[in-house]
Structure formats: structure tokens, C-alpha cells
């Protein structure tokens, strides 16, 4: 890559204060997103995907959060910006699409106002221009009757419509970079398909770099160029999409693939990842974080914290045993799941 990457995250850590101590929800994450590239982040709930996204946008409550590392956006470290400097970046150069389209919209403001707010913050446009542009945006995100929707309140729209509005807001100032945090989880499959199509169209038009957060491997397969698998605040595997799908290496990634029904055609039983994602406070901080959930392996060999290393070109894995890792026949479900 000769060109400077759009977004380069170097060793980013984000810790939250719980009680009197800080706990890292994002732990030493490094990631690169180029222009016109979709990087997907997958992982179970609670593994730190949203925390990472909000760290990039600097939207965590300051008084309870500590951040370390670098987030280089166009070469500029966002972490060193003041709030007002950051405000100039947010919305203009980077936009964000939130998961729940109802709560992400201000219930007391008309759709039009909410779209225009972003333009007001960054562009010097007259009211008429802003309105014109808002209508264009609404049209662009596939809202059938922009004039009408412009004047409506969020609650008057269906879930799919709201999500389109959220997208319209995010792209109002044509940002070069977008973060989409589970943009379709709350939607029906048919609507999901529409939204994904829409995002893809927009992306190809505007050449934005996108971080797409999801836990649906199908969505990743449809959308992403590169995939980062996260577990317990760390990236455990990173590769481009077909590499990863054809050759998942990390035990966690493999478990994920094995547990989804659509990938397990004809198989009578699905694979079960033992246990659950530990809560932030209870995250194992030493050794391999995932080893806890593979009860059939010898945890003694995993006391060392594995580093993320490149196993083939552009394929990174954080595991010391992926080469010999196997799923035992009886390792399926109930037996290891103890209450």
C-alpha cells in the first residue's frame, strides 16, 4: 500500500472505570482501513466491537474512560485532538451508523432537522440548500417520499425507514469514512438485504472506507473486503474475506463458523462454543483469552499471551496452537456446559 491509509489504528486500548478500577474493553488493537474498503469486525456480544467503534469516534464518556494508543485518521491522531477539533472531524470526515434506529434518532425532532444538523455543523449552506440536499439524501437512501419523510418524526417511520434516515445522517456531509455498528441487526431479513444493498451502493459511489460491525457471518460474507475477528477486546484473526472464509485458522473463528446453521448444511448438530464471553471485569488478562472456552485442550500450554502474527500474506492470527487445533468428536454441547 503506497498510499497513506485512511484510518490507521495503532495499539489502541480503551478502559472503562468500574468501581475504582479501569478495565480494558479494547485491548491493544491495531487495524487499518483504506479508502473504498469495507473492514468487518465480528465476534460475540460483549467482545468489544462497539467499544472500538466508539473509541474511534471518541464518543465514550470522558470521565469514565481511559484511552491509549493512536487513531490516525488521514495521518492525524484523533486521540490528541481537543473536543472542538474532534467535532470538526466527526460528522464531516467520519460518520457513524448506529444499531438501533429508533433510539439513535431524537424522538422530538423532525427527520429533516436531524439530517440538517450535521450540515449546519460543517457546511456553510443556506436553509434552502440544506433542505434540497436533505431531500436528495433521503432519495438516495431509498426513501420513496422524501418531501413527506422530511417533515415526519422518527416514530412515524418503520424500522427500515428509520435505519435509512440514520444512514442519511451519517453520509450527510459525504464523509470519507463510515462506521456501521450492527446496522441491520434490528431488521427483518428482507429489509436487511435492502439496507446492505444500499450501503454497498453508497460505498461504491463515494469510495468511503467502512468499518462494519456485525455478528452475522452472512452479512460479512456479503459486504466485507477484510475481516477482523474480535474476542475479549482483542483481534484474534485478521484477513481478507475469502481467505478467512476459506481458511479460518483461529479456533475461535472456526468455532463461530461451525456454530451457524446456514453454514452447517445437513449437519444434524451444530458446534457449541463452551461457556460465555466473560464480562469485562472478569476478562482473563493473562495467557490465551480464549483457551478457557476450549476445555479439551491443556490450558497449561496457553499461559503465555499469544501475539498477533502473520501466518500468510495479510492473514494474521493470534494463536499459538492453531496448527494442531482440532474439535474432538464429543466436544459438542452439553457435557462441558456446567452451571
Amino acid at each position, binding site marked *: 500500500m503506497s498510499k497513506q491509509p485512511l484510518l490507521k489504528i495503532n495499539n489502541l486500548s480503551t478502559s472503562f472505570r468500574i468501581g475504582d478500577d479501569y478495565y480494558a474493553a479494547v485491548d491493544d488493537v491495531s487495524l487499518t482501513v483504506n479508502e473504498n474498503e469495507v473492514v468487518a469486525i465480528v465476534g460475540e456480544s460483549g467482545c468489544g466491537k462497539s467499544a472500538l467503534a466508539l473509541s474511534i469516534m471518541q*464518543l465514550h464518556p470522558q470521565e469514565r474512560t481511559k484511552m491509549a494508543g493512536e487513531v490516525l485518521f488521514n495521518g492525524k491522531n484523533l486521540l490528541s485532538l481537543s473536543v472542538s477539533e474532534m467535532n*470538526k472531524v466527526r460528522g464531516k470526515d467520519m460518520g457513524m451508523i448506529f444499531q438501533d434506529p429508533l*433510539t*439513535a434518532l*431524537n*424522538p422530538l*425532532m423532525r427527520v429533516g432537522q436531524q439530517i440538517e*444538523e450535521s450540515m449546519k455543523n*460543517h457546511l456553510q449552506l443556506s436553509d434552502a440548500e440544506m433542505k434540497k440536499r436533505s431531500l436528495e439524501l433521503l432519495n438516495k437512501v431509498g426513501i420513496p417520499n422524501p418531501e413527506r419523510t422530511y417533515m415526519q*418524526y422518527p416514530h412515524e417511520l418503520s424500522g427500515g425507514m428509520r435505519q435509512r434516515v440514520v444512514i442519511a445522517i451519517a453520509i450527510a456531509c459525504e464523509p470519507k469514512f463510515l462506521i456501521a455498528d450492527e446496522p441491520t441487526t434490528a431488521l427483518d431479513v428482507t429489509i436487511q438485504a435492502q439496507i446492505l444493498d444500499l450501503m454497498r451502493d453508497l460505498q461504491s459511489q463515494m469510495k468511503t472506507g467502512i468499518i462494519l460491525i456485525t455478528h452475522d457471518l452472512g452479512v460479512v460474507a456479503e459486504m466485507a473486503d477484510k475481516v477482523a475477528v474480535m474476542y475479549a477486546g482483542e483481534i484474534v484473526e485478521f484477513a481478507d474475506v475469502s481467505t478467512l472464509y476459506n481458511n479460518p485458522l483461529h479456533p475461535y473463528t472456526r468455532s463461530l463458523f461451525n456454530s451457524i446453521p446456514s453454514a452447517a448444511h445437513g449437519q444434524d448438530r451444530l458446534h457449541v462454543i463452551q461457556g460465555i464471553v466473560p464480562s469485562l471485569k472478569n476478562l482473563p488478562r493473562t495467557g490465551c483469552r480464549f483457551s478457557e472456552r476450549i476445555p479439551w485442550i491443556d490450558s497449561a500450554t496457553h499461559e503465555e499471551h499469544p501475539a498477533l502474527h502473520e501466518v500468510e500474506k495479510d492473514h494474521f492470527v493470534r494463536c499459538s496452537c492453531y496448527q494442531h487445533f482440532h474439535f474432538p468428536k464429543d466436544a459438542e454441547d452439553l457435557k462441558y456446559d456446567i452451571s
Partner: protein
Amino acid sequence: MLKFIIRRFLVMIPQLALLSILIFLLAKAMPGDALTGSMQANPNLDPKVFEELREKLGLNDPWYEQYGRWIGNLFQGELGMSYIHKVDIADLLGDRMANTFWLGLVTLIFTYLIAVPLGVVAGRWNESWADKLIVGYNYVSFAIPLFVFALIMLFIFGFGLHWFPIGGSVDVTVEKGTFAYFLSRIHHLLLPAITAALLSTVGTIQYLRNEIIDTKLKDFVKTARAKGTPEKKVYSRHIFRNSLLPVAAFLGYDIVFIIGGSVFIEQIFSYPGLGQLFISSINQRDFSVVNILVMLFGFLSILGTLISDIILSIVDPRIRID
């Protein structure tokens, strides 16, 4: 909206009808009547005269006849006569109502003038020392008995500092209709209004504070920040606005609350409004006035809740009334 209002007014009818029967019976059940007092005050008069008067005033008829007469007159817009004041109740209420109205209004204004900034400060900088101070004030104003506080205010600002008059609604020596008259009325209003306001801020402050603290964490606030909206605007356009608008809907309930409180405030500040009239009418068994006042207050509280509902539907697009 119109439909909603009409329906609410229709619902009001049975409520008021029930209230009228209730209060009529209760009033009748009170020992003594409007003449008892003046009988004791004029022992040189033959009690037969009072009997005669009772007959004349219809006080000896069975309750349902009296009730029927009363309701019948009410429907014709006649409120009846005060037994004690010997005037048409409409005339009697006129001035008092104006007094109570102005007192209520100014109290309301002060309540919001005090409560909104305090609530906003406490909500925005919650956990700060200012917040703690405000919460402390809130507790104390909730706990302190109204009349103790009112008396203290009266002694300090009325007598001690001479800033405010010690009673009444207006200075009798100023000409009605002049600016001085207006000023005099305001001057008489201020102390009771501020006193009442200081104690009625609890609900609003509490609500506002909680609401702001909640709203701060809402997703749409994140959206606003993600748009690059400056912090000041995030607060003013999103957080405060969303927290304040519901407060506007308190207006109606506040009206109800302040009306209820007028009974106390007016008594303490010798401010001749409806509340004071009510107490003296009860003591003098001026039934007709008691009944009308209760009906009026009942009507006002219904109206208050209606206003609240309407305001709420206006400020919050999610609530539709039809």
C-alpha cells in the same frame, strides 16, 4: 385534537355531577349552618327569627330539594347567594378569583424561574458540588412545613426588612387602573408567590435532573455528537430540549398543585383569594360558597390535567390525541 377536548369535557360532566352531589351532601352534613354564628353573636334577638330565616332561605327543605334547586340554578348560570356575604357568589368570587389567579400565575412563573435553571445545572453537572447543593435544597424544601417557612419569610421580609406589605392584595389608596395600582398588586403578590414557589420547585427540579441524567446517556445524543455537534448545542438542542419539553406538561398539574396550596398560602399572608374564602366559608358554614368553590377547584383540576395532556401532545410528537 378538538375531538379529544370535547370528549374530555364530556367525561368531565359525570365527574362534576358526582362531585356536586358529594360536596353537597358533605356540606349539609357539617354541623351548624350559616346562621349559627350570627345567632350566638346576637343573643338579644329572638331565635324564632332565625327559624323564620332558615325557612326563607330554604335551609329546612330536604337535601334533594335543595340540591335540585342548586343544580337547577347552576345550569342557568346562577351560582346562588352567599349566606354570609349576602351577595351573588359570582360577584363574591370575581375579585377573589382574580387575586388567586394572579398569585397562582406569579407563583408558577417563579417556580419555573427557580426550578428550571437549578434542575438544568443539577442534571448537567450531576455529582458536582452545585448538584449536591441543589439536591440538598430540594430535600429541605420538601421537608419544611409550608407555614413555618411562610411565617419566617413574612417576618423577615415583611416586618424585618419592610420589603413587602404584610397582607392584602393591593394598596387601597392607589387608583384602580393606574400603573401604580398594577405595581401595588405585584408588590403584594411577590412575597407569597416567592414563598410558595420556593417550596413547589421540588417536583420540577427532581424531574428535570433525572431526565437530563437519563437523556445524557441516550443513543440519539451519541448520534448528535457523531455529527460533530458542539457540546453546547448537544446540550441545548438535544438534552435540555428533550428533558424540558415534558416539564411543560407539568404546567397543568402544577396549576392543580398551586391551587391546592393557595388554601395555605393565602391564609398565612392574609391574601384574600379563593383559598382564604374557602376556609372562612367553612368556618362560617357558608354552604353555597363552599359548594361552588369545591366545584370550581374540581373543575380547575380537571382543566389542569387536560391542559397537561394537551401540552404534552403538542410538545411530544409521539403522543397523539384524537
